[in-house]
């Protein structure tokens, strides 16, 4: 009996070791590119060309980071990624706020102020989620030209806001469906109107899904390349487009360390957002399932 228990215990421990061993291997495999990017970005260029690609740097230097941030050339100018980083910020902040805000109101109306055809409209909005980027480029370009926003950051903000509404509406609709209708009725009897109920009651309960929507939209918009390259040019390009230009410059020796540093700079904001707000993201995604 005792031996039986002990052997089962040993089996259990072996199983555990196998699982964790496997997971560690997989993690190492997927972290490899990040490892290469980070180590390469802090090496001297000579060291890279000497053949050390995967190993630890002999001497850590942040020259490549400085160069990527403020000196790297992208074919037209040599000002680094800084101006384009700022472009992306100018684009992403209003686009995230607008698309999340509009999605919240849409979700609120679709669930709590149903009108004839509201389900149909929600269906059409859902359709927007499945619309590939490529399909809207030409009509969008025409629209931007018509509005006089072609090639501007404001135009890009509009494109991302419109494209994002489908997703944010879906998020908020699914969240607000779980909020009891009686809350709205109680507030109506208390004398609250449409906006007052939205601001004082619905939005505070929706905090988890607001975080989800913001993270989702931030990542989508920050990482977007296609809309950026299609609707902006030169000075107004977002960082993804600038990164591509920096990496593709073909003059003299290829500066791998600068390329890697530039890639890290472009990817850092989304990384930070996930690390800071990641646990809210998971909580928000599961929150709709359980009625508060």
């Amino acid at each position, binding site marked *: 009996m005792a031996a039986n228990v002990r052997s089962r215990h040993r089996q259990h421990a072996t199983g555990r070791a196998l699982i964790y061993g496997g997971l560690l291997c997989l993690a190492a495999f997927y972290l490899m590119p990040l490892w290469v990017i980070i180590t390469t970005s802090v090496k001297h260029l000579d060291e890279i060309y000497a053949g050390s690609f995967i190993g630890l740097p002999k001497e850590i230097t942040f020259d490549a980071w400085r160069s990527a941030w403020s000196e790297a050339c992208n074919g037209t100018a040599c000002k680094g990624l800084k101006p384009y980083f700022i472009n992306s910020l100018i684009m992403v902040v209003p686009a995230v706020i607008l698309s999340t805000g509009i999605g919240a109101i849409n979700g609120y109306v679709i669930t709590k102020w149903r009108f004839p055809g509201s389900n149909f409209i929600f269906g059409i909005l859902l359709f927007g989620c499945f619309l590939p980027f490529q399909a809207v480029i030409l009509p969008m370009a025409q629209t931007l030209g018509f509005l006089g926003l072609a090639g501007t950051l404001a135009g890009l903000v509009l494109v991302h806001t419109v494209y994002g509404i489908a997703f944010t509406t879906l998020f908020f609709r699914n969240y607000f469906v779980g909020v*009891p209708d*009686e*809350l709205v*009725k*109680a*507030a*109506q*009897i*208390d*004398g*609250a109107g449409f906006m*007052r109920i939205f601001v*004082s*009651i619905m939005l*505070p*309960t929706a905090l988890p899904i607001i975080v989800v929507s913001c993270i989702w939209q931030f990542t989508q918009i920050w990482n977007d390349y296609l809309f950026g390259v299609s609707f902006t040019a030169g000075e107004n390009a977002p960082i993804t487009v600038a990164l591509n230009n920096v990496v593709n410059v073909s003059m003299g020796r290829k500066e791998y360390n600068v390329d890697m540093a530039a890639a890290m700079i472009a990817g850092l904001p989304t990384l930070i957002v996930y690390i800071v707000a990641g646990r809210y993201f998971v909580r928000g995604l599961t929150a709709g399932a359980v009625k*508060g």
Partner: protein
Amino acid sequence: MATLEIDRVRKSFGSVEVLKGVSISIADGDFLVLLGPSGCGKSTLLSMIAGLESVTSGEIRIANDVVNDLPPKDRDIAMVFQSYALYPTMTVRQNIEFGMKIRGVQPAERAKATLAAAEMLQMKHLLDRRPSQLSGGQRQRVAMGRAVVRDPKLFLFDEPLSNLDAKLRVDMRTEIKRLHQRLGTTIVYVTHDQIEAMTLATRVAVMKDGVVQQLDDPQVVYDRPANTYVAKFVGSPSMSLIPARLAVDGAGAVAVFDIPNEKPARISGIPIAKENATKFNGQNVLVGIRPELFTVSDGKPGRTISVHIDVVEPTGPDTLALFQIGGVEVTARVPPKTVEARKSATLTVDTTKIVLFDAVTEDRID
């Protein structure tokens, strides 16, 4: 404080008619209970009184003012919901003050009203908690507090006790009754629980399929149900309805029950008007007898009936005895240990409270 008149109100959702011409009128300070099974339209009617649902036709008047087209906030009402509907992100205090804040009540006055309500409902210590930190009964109190601070003309309760456990339900029932006695405000209360209706109401409206079956004092509804539906719905165990034939002898109306292989049993002294006795003479009727109208016979001859007891269910204070008369199951409430299962017993019936129904229309015969 106000009267409430519901005048031939109808409500349709598309082609489905939910309320089919409901008329109810109650006086200032009345406690009206809308009683009925789910789907009878009682909650819809309450929503219409609150202004959360539109009125298809007819009129609703609060304190003699037609409110059909007034939004909820202008009707001077307060409502307590089944799920309590407390605002989850606000503290109890903020929940109670929210309505006053919107109406522009000054902060000092708000605090005073909140404190008064909290004291009355014994929840002063809960004011800074959030709804998620409260038990069901406490949430119920907060919901009532939120209604009380409004000082409305009309309180509306939508099945407020159905989410509570049995013990708490009885406590909160008393609490609501106390609130009504203290404030004297007119109340409309929706429930499917006939005990709640009996204990709380000054007026009960029994509803079925969008039609009011009977609107009366609870005791009248219990003693003189308008039809077999009300008779069955109110009272637990419910009234037994025994098919019989009406006969008339020198003393008055007699109910004759056919018993297989035996001679028919007779109960005389059925309390109906003479002209109805003549009218229904020889016809089929349903004899309604509440369980407590039976007593164990002391052997003296009179209004007795011999039965064979099938099952005995002791409840503590008394015992329910089940037996057959005329092919239907009948329940009698008798003192404990006075009858035994699978034995014969002779029971006396208090005929003064027997109710007679037409076997065809199922309406009461007076």
